[in-house]
């Protein structure tokens, strides 16, 4: 069945502007300076993180991030070790670079897993309504009753601490956010006249959802995905800091902070630099996400 031309049936505008081309999107993004800064910082950090992901020993410039040195323990920042060394004499700068892929990887993986399940749940609940909507949203209400890091903490307490389990725990915690936002957008989109018209023309539910609803609710999904990565990174670092996430000697930043807090009196720099990096990464995601929202989803603008 051919879909009628947009002009004829479409007299109510979609709620969110559709992203028609990457070029147009980037043009709008470029107008927002802080978003651009976030974008460039993130691109740079991604490039850096590739080295860490492909080389377990992280042998960059001849210095390994895993090399311990008994003679260089707890040294402050110097020309040889930009961020100083930790309690085992490992170079903190290289450990941070090495650990970049874990921080970014867990943040992305957890968020995409959450979106992968949460978005369909939200669409189904919003599109079909009825008992399906009630059940899905009640379950989401239950998950929302565990504020912040508590749900992830409870899940990790069951699964045990590891990189994968932390990712799963944070992904489950993100479900209600995605489901709620997507459900809301689906509800408003499906009421638009052109969706009615397409249905009247005999289009199936699957076609309506994938070709007409999904493209129109993409902007809030993209914006919230970006912003959620920031909070996923914070949660993951928090769990590792508590010793319940990524386990040492993996150079995860939260775990490094946990290592360093026993040496705060002798060597405060161990706890300074990994945390500073977390701030930079999360800040970049927040800047980029805020900018994205302004560029592609102006309705949500604060």
């Amino acid at each position, binding site marked *: 069945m051919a879909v009628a031309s947009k002009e004829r049936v479409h007299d109510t505008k979609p709620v969110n502007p559709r992203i028609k081309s990457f070029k147009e999107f980037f043009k709008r993004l470029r107008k927002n300076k802080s978003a651009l800064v976030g974008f460039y910082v993130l691109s740079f950090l991604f490039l850096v993180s590739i080295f860490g992901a492909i080389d377990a020993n992280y042998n960059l410039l001849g210095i390994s991030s895993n090399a311990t040195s008994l003679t260089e323990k707890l040294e402050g920042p110097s020309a040889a070790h930009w961020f100083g060394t930790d309690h085992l004499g490992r170079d903190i700068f290289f450990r941070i670079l090495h650990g970049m892929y874990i921080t970014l990887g867990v943040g992305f993986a957890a968020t995409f897993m959450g979106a992968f399940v949460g978005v369909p749940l939200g669409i189904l609940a919003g599109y079909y309504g009825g008992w399906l909507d009630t059940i899905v949203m009640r379950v989401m209400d239950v998950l929302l009753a*565990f504020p912040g890091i508590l749900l992830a*903490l409870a899940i990790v307490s069951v699964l045990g601490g590891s990189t994968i389990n932390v990712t799963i725990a944070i992904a489950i915690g993100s479900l209600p956010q995605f489901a709620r936002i997507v459900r809301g957008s689906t509800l408003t989109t499906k009421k638009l006249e052109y969706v009615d018209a397409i249905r009247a023309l005999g289009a199936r539910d699957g076609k309506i959802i994938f070709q007409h609803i999904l493209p129109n609710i993409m902007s809030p999904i993209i914006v919230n995905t970006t912003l959620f990565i920031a909070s996923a990174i914070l949660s993951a670092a928090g769990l590792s*800091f*508590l010793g319940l996430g990524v386990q040492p000697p993996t150079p995860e930043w939260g775990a490094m*902070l946990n290592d360093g807090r026993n040496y705060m009196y002798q060597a405060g720099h161990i706890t300074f630099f990994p945390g500073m990096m977390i701030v930079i990464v999360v800040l970049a995601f927040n800047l980029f996400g805020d900018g994205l929202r302004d560029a592609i989803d102006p309705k949500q603008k604060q």
Partner: protein
Amino acid sequence: MTTFIIRRVLQLIPVLIGVSILVFSLMHLTPGNPAVIMAGESAPEATVQAIEQRLGLNDPLYVQYWNFLTSALQLDFGTSIRDNIPVMSHIQARFFITLELAIYSTIFTVVLGMLAGIVSAVKRYSISDVSLMIVTLFGLSMPNFWLGLMLIQWFSIELGWFAPTGWGNMDQIVLPVIALGTAGAAIVARMTRSSMLDVITQDYIRTARAKGVKERVVIFRHALKNALIPVVTVVGLQFGYLLAGSVLTESVFAINGLGRLIIDSILQRDFPVVQGAVLVIAVTFVFVNLLVDISYRMLNKRVDLN
């Protein structure tokens, strides 16, 4: 209003049942036999059986859940695997410390956040607005545990102004409250700013100015009252995040609260204590949200009660 409150309370029932099922399942979703995990891999068979016996792990699941639910309703969460002390007395001793921490942090969050938000909105696009918004962006992006570590580094270790650990004295309270409350203050500041900006552009504010009301009165008496309504919701949510966030802050500052109890119990695989403490925080959060919803309706008379 009464109908609204009754309906809102009734809506809590399925949520609370769901919460109790989730917390109950924690122990049963563990890969392997929970009794073995709690006793330790190398524990003798008799110890494992004793734990199974005590927790009723051999009963059918629905019997176990029913027992869990009925005792939880009587505030009985069983006894700790480690020291045989009732879970409730563990929780009682620590709940009020965490509650205190969360309440002080909420006050800090609200006062600082609203002040910053009002200043930003009133002096829109000024240097103070721009710099406040940059500071709030940093506040949002900072892990509260790292901020805690930095505060200890600067104000306890280097300057010696505050105690680095513990809870109770004034010099022990200040740093944890700042560490825990800063992110929330940033959120409240941004919310207050945008809400104030919405209100300031409305007709009745222009009318008030036109009839010659002083700017200060316009801002505080006319604008603020309406601008704060949406902020109330955020504050309620923040209280929940502060309750949960105290897990990290308590760990940093070695505060003997509920959060630390959860962490210690997870590390020691003391599931009854984890279940009890998690349940208490979740239920507290659910009821705080109820209060927030009700006060939101009371404040905002324009909201349709249906």
